[in-house]
Structure formats: C-alpha cells, structure tokens
C-alpha cells in the first residue's frame, strides 16, 4: 500500500477545532505541508486542536514541529465522530533557544480517524505549531 503524509490538507485532512485563532496564523497552517507557516496560541494554557483524516488510517511515524511547547499530550479516536478519544502519547519537550522543536514519535497502535493535540503547558506566554506530519497508510475510506 502507498505510504503518504496522512495529515496534509491536500490529502483530505482537516483541522476541525482549535482553541486559538489569529486570522494571520490560522490552524490550517499546521497541515499545509509548509513549516514556514504556523498556528499560534493566543494566550493561556491548555490549548488544543483536532485533526480529522476523513478516513481510517494507520499511523507509523508522527513528526511535530513547534516552538515553546513544554508538555504535549496526543489523543486519538477511531470513531466517525470526534468522540471517545483515548490517550496515546504524552511527552515533555525540550526547548532550545532559536531552534524549532522537531519531535518524532514512532507510533504503536496507530489506528485513527482523529488526532487531538493538547498543549498542556509551554515555555512562554505563547507557543507555535509549524507542522504535523504522519507517515502511514489508509486503511479504508468512509462509506
């Protein structure tokens, strides 16, 4: 089966919820495949966003590029609706001044229809997410 970046909006994925939105830096920037564009949080934590694949996928590897993110929790759902999220990954990231955080997760049990990213805390008043990509395969399209 063809492996691809499942998160890309060009592959049909969509950010269906984000708790912050600056018109100039909307959440769509996370999945546009361009790390130069980004989504910003606009004050106070936690902050979260949900990516919907519009199909059943199996994720093998997940990469998140961000800045100032401290504690990140990722939950996933295999439902057709954005419900029944279960905890998947939680990690404290490291901050290096002036350098984009480039965090890679090798996924176990990567079956999902939705991913929910919760930025629990940050190293500053604001954080940014530049890109999220998920290598994996499409299991099935929605009927």
């Amino acid at each position: 089966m063809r492996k691809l970046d499942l998160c890309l909006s060009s592959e049909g994925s969509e950010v269906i919820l984000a708790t912050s939105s600056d018109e100039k830096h909307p959440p769509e920037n996370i999945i546009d495949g361009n790390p130069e564009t980004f989504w910003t949080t606009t004050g106070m934590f936690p902050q979260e966003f949900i990516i919907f694949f519009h199909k059943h996928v199996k994720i093998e590897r997940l990469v998140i590029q961000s800045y100032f993110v401290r504690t990140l929790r990722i939950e996933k759902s295999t439902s057709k609706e954005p419900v029944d999220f279960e905890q998947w990954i939680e990690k404290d990231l490291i901050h290096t001044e002036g350098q984009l955080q480039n965090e890679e997760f090798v996924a176990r049990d990567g079956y999902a229809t939705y991913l929910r990213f919760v930025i629990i805390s940050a190293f500053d008043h604001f954080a940014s997410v530049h890109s999220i990509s998920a290598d994996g395969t499409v299991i099935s399209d929605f009927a």
Partner: protein
Amino acid sequence: MVKLAAKCILAGDPTVGKTALAQIFRSDGAHFQKNYTLTTGVDLVVKTVPVPDTGDSVELFIFDSAGKELFSEMLDKLWESPNVLCLVYDVTSEQSFNSCAKWLEKARAQIPGSSLPGVLVGNKADLAGRRVVDSAQAQAWALGQGLEYFETSVKEMENYEAPFVCLAKQFHHLYQEKVEVFQALV
C-alpha cells in the same frame, strides 16, 4: 484580527482596593463597593479590552485573590502561569507601598525565564490630605522595575480603566514580538 487571552493577577496588601478596582472595572464604573469585605479565596473577573489603534483585543481573566498573609499558601496555586500583573497599593499607606517589592518578586517567581508585563497602581488618590507616598517616588520605583505607573481613585471612578488598557497593550505587544520570533525560525 486576533483576540488574545491573558491571566492577570491582582496583587497587593489587604485593603488597598484590589477588589474594588476589579469590580468597578467589570461594571464600567457602575458599582463602587462601599463596605469592605475581606477576599478569602479568589474572585474572577473576565473582561475584553480592545487594544487601541488595532482591531485586536485582549480578554483579561483577572484573578482577584486575597492579600492577607494567612491565605498566601493558596496563592501559589491560584497564581500559576500568570500572563500580566496588576500590582496595587494605597497612597495613604507607606506599608502597602513597601510591600510591592515582595508582591512583585512573588509574582515573577511564578514564571522564571519569561517576562511578566505589569503595572503599578496607586489607589485612593482622592485622599489627598492623607497621602504619604509621593507620586514621583512611586513612579521612579515602578520605572526601575519595568512597570508602568498609574494613580486611581476607585471611589471617585477616576482612571480605573487605564491600568487594564495598558496591560492589554503590553500583552499584545509581547504577542507580536513572539510571532516575529516564530516567523524567523524557519
């Protein structure tokens, strides 16, 4: 257009007028509380403040917590991750002014490594005959600490909005600075 959200902690000795300031700000000058009630836990006042000369705004979550020493242990939890600080003293009380350094230190210790925008507010400016803290002295101290200085009379409803508008402006400025940092990363 962006709407930011900021946790604002209101700090200062008991009876300087923290609650009165928060309440008059919330009610746009409609409500001055004449009787003193000791704040024991925390009151939350939420209000959106437009940032002058922009289409943007800041939703302030003002945590009005107890100034009494007795409740200071609770503050560590209530004051977690502040975004801006509103430090209040009473211009008729030398003690309340002297305590500001302690309050400022306690607030800044909550977010080591990040800057905490703030204002210093001298309240009860209407009590001219009883004033003991000189404006110039307070202003000089505020400047040295990187705080903007305001005098208010909550009782006379004077200047009670300015400190909060200033906090909104400072926080908005900080946001723009960070966005520039994010932009320069890639």
